[in-house]
């Protein structure tokens, strides 16, 4: 039996994880194990994120679930024409989540969620071939979402709530490909902004026409983080009126795009559950990352992105193997929002296939341990970024990229 369980986990381990851009789709161990589906699944307070309308269908009075992931993500770069190569040395990313739901009446539930759906940590070796685009970036955002869920009928519910976001960004790159101080140290800038806050909202609906079939839809609004008076720190700048880069402050806007999800789940053969989610992320809001420096002598930094809206197709399976174990597996196809010619090493995302698996251990009536993992597979891709200019002329930065990401996660669920 033990052997069989082990095999099952790996056999089910097909695929799904991340999403394009700097969206990090790791908002629950149970959901991730099923390819990060969940818009039409009712089995834990992870629904605060995946579809608030589902909370009201939870069986327990109180349900709390929390967990975290460790992201091992790396990017390799090479250019066969010049021999240049690079490998990121990115620190472990640790997205986390904490959801709680409380069943006030049989038609009303309240919930609260804290989660980190956006972030990016990429560290290249300083002064690598693409250092004029990025040396390192650390982008983080925490979402706090009070939620209400209302059952309008036995078959139909809605839910939603406001979202409070607090974000931070730290970004370092060289000013251009060649500028140095007298000793050859490359001129660079670090921009840093933290405590950037903004409000957004989310709303969802759920339809349960039969005991076995659930259909869900969910929308999370666009949130644009406006960093004001962030710090811009210039280093290794030649002492010349022609390079007037003095430390200053900057304003910048970073969009966290809206996301719409529709999906269904279907229970079959008693112990099996199939889920499908379709995400559409409205990345076209991310046209350009522009830094407006307070010091008027310093030219603004314009970094075209021209992202496209992107879709993700998610599939998940759940199997109630024993009273003790629930096994899950999933797959997703994640379409990259990066437009042709705008593949930047700062968020080097091409299309990817995510393979996920996981399990829940029912330690007791009220306590569960959730584990999951994600392997995100990227094909190697020849790509170019053509948004960088020198003297008004585009200087493309291109090469071959290969990314990989792996995220094991562990969570705990308490019900009463």
């Amino acid at each position, binding site marked *: 039996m*033990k052997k069989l*369980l*082990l095999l099952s*986990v*790996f056999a089910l381990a097909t695929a799904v994880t991340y999403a394009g851009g700097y969206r990090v789709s790791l908002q629950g161990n149970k959901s991730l194990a099923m390819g990060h589906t969940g818009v039409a699944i009712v089995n834990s307070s992870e629904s605060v994120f995946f579809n608030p309308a589902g909370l009201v269908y939870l069986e327990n009075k109180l349900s709390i679930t929390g967990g975290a992931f*460790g992201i*091992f993500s*790396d*990017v*390799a770069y*090479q*250019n*066969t*024409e*010049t*021999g*240049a*190569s690079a*490998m990121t040395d990115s620190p472990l990313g640790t997205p986390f989540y904490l959801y709680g739901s409380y069943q006030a009446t049989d038609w009303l539930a309240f919930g609260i969620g804290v989660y980190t759906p956006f972030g990016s940590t990429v560290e290249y070796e300083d002064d690598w*071939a693409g250092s004029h685009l990025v040396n390192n970036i650390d982008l983080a955002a925490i979402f706090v979402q009070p939620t209400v869920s209302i059952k309008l009928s036995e078959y139909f519910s809605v839910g939603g709530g406001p979202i409070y976001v607090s974000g931070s960004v730290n970004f370092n790159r060289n000013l251009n*490909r*060649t*500028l*140095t101080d*007298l*000793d*050859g140290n490359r001129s660079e800038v670090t921009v840093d902004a933290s405590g950037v806050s903004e409000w957004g909202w989310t709303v969802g609906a759920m339809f349960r026409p039969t005991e076995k079939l659930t259909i869900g839809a969910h929308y999370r609004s666009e949130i644009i983080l406006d960093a004001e008076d962030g710090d811009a720190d210039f280093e290794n700048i*030649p*002492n*010349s*009126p*022609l*390079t*007037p880069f003095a430390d200053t402050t900057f304003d910048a806007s970073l969009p966290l795009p809206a996301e719409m999800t529709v999906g269904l789940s279907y229970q079959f053969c008693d112990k099996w559950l199939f889920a499908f989610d379709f995400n559409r992320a409205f990345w076209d809001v991310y046209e350009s990352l522009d830094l407006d420096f307070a010091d008027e002598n310093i030219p603004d930094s314009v970094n075209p992105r021209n992202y496209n809206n992107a879709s993700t197709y998610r599939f998940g399976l759940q199997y109630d193997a024993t009273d*003790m174990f629930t096994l899950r597996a999933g797959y997703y196809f994640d379409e990259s929002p990066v437009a042709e010619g705008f593949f930047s090493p700062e968020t080097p995302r091409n299309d990817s296939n995510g393979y996920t*698996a996981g*399990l829940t*251990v029912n330690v007791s009536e009220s306590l569960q*341990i959730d*584990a999951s*993992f994600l*392997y995100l597979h*990227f094909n*190697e891709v020849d790509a170019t970024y053509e948004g960088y*200019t*020198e*003297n008004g*002329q*585009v*200087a*493309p930065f291109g090469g*071959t990229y*290969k*990314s*990989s990401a*792996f*995220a*094991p996660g*562990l969570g705990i669920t308490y019900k009463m």
Partner: protein
Amino acid sequence: MKKTIYIVLGGLLTLGFVSCEPEFDNPVDEPGFYTTGDADMSNFVAVGNSLTAGFADGALYITGQENSYPNIIAQQAAFADGGEFTQPLMADNLGGLLLNGEQVAQNRFVLPADPATGEPLGPVVLDGTPTTEVTTSETGPFNNMGVPGAKSFHLVTPGYSTLNPYYGRIATSSSATVLADAVSLNPSFFALWIGNNDILSYATSGGIGVDQTGNLDPSTYGNNDITDPNVFASVYNDQVNALMAGASGGVLINIPDVTSIPFFTTVPVQSIPLDAATAAAVNAQFALYNNQVLPLLVGAGVISPEEAALREINFTAGVNFPTITDDDLTDVTNILISQGIDAETAALLGQLRQANNDDLVVLTASSVLGALADPSNPLSVIGVAVPLQDQFVLTGTEQDRVSTATQAYNTTIVTLATANDLAFVDARSALAQVANGGVAYDAGLLTNEFVTGGAFSLDGVHPTPRGYAYTANLIIEEINSKYNATIPTVNIGNYGTITLTNNVSN
């Protein structure tokens, strides 16, 4: 049961760690991706002058040396199976050289800008005391045996270390030669680029030296002389043979046309603006000279009518050709003195003419032209009443001497490359392309325009890192084609050009 959980979780974690590093199907950093082919680059030795050393902005300094063409080639060859490449790095980025505490070479040039307007000013020498002491520097030999200032025959001159502090720094003994030091490294592959200074110092000094063609004894040459082509051929042949002895191959690089470097193309030959009244006044001063002295000299058979025509001075309203001293004209100073003209005036007129479109005015003339030779005498404008000195003008005749010698050297170089089955790089054609239309790279055009063109450093003679990178690419391409190698080239857009800074003593 618990055990099972541990096994499962352990398995998941392990999987995570092993599958973490993304790997390419064909990684460039894997042995065998690139090859140096039939060339064994494990011990690459480059021999030459300042161009090999990485000299730029009138000085030798660390970042310039790091961007020397042979260092760039060695770095790229290291992607294949190239070996370590050592260079005699200076002690700082000021440039400049001390010999027993005395500064014997100037610091690098930098480009300041006007603090008020932000407009670039002319290049100035960077302020600071250099820290590279000739007597305490590490001695060689090094893989980079480029010695700034060296002419072809210097490489085989015993005791050259006492004549040239750049070689004095690194010479293995006081009687060593550059060539012998280089050969002692047993090069597996070599580059030889020598001969530029055999004509360059003549050219940059405005042809004040002597064309030594016909004189086979280089020990009698002055520093600004043109080396006899047979002397060049002889020493060059010896150098090629010595370097080839144990090598798998090598590359020979020819001599570019020095007259297309910014040192000669930046200052326009028409440089004296005059209004009509001033031009008339100046012409009146030269009337006697034009209308009486010159015909008399023709009549006496001292000069030909053609030379008389060449020597006539005539200013007009607008931008004029300056007056210059041309040592290829008949020197009539003593004749004029014997005719009762005062010595000072006679000296001014002795080899006087007005420049013309065949002449090239050197970069360093820009600070002299139009200035007053005697600050207390407003009439002593250089280029008008006082001729621009010979050292500031490379005349058409002088250019012909340079060109003739260069062609002879280049014939030797290509002939020896062919005879010895070595790679040959036509630097002359390459520079001609930079000077005529430019060379496109990913963010612009590499041209010979001073300061802004990207190819030439602030001394107007030596390349920038970008210029050296372009040179390195030319050589890599020739090595690849000659020796079935696949050494990757560099993107010259990643290499810098001139240095901006105001931290200087003006």
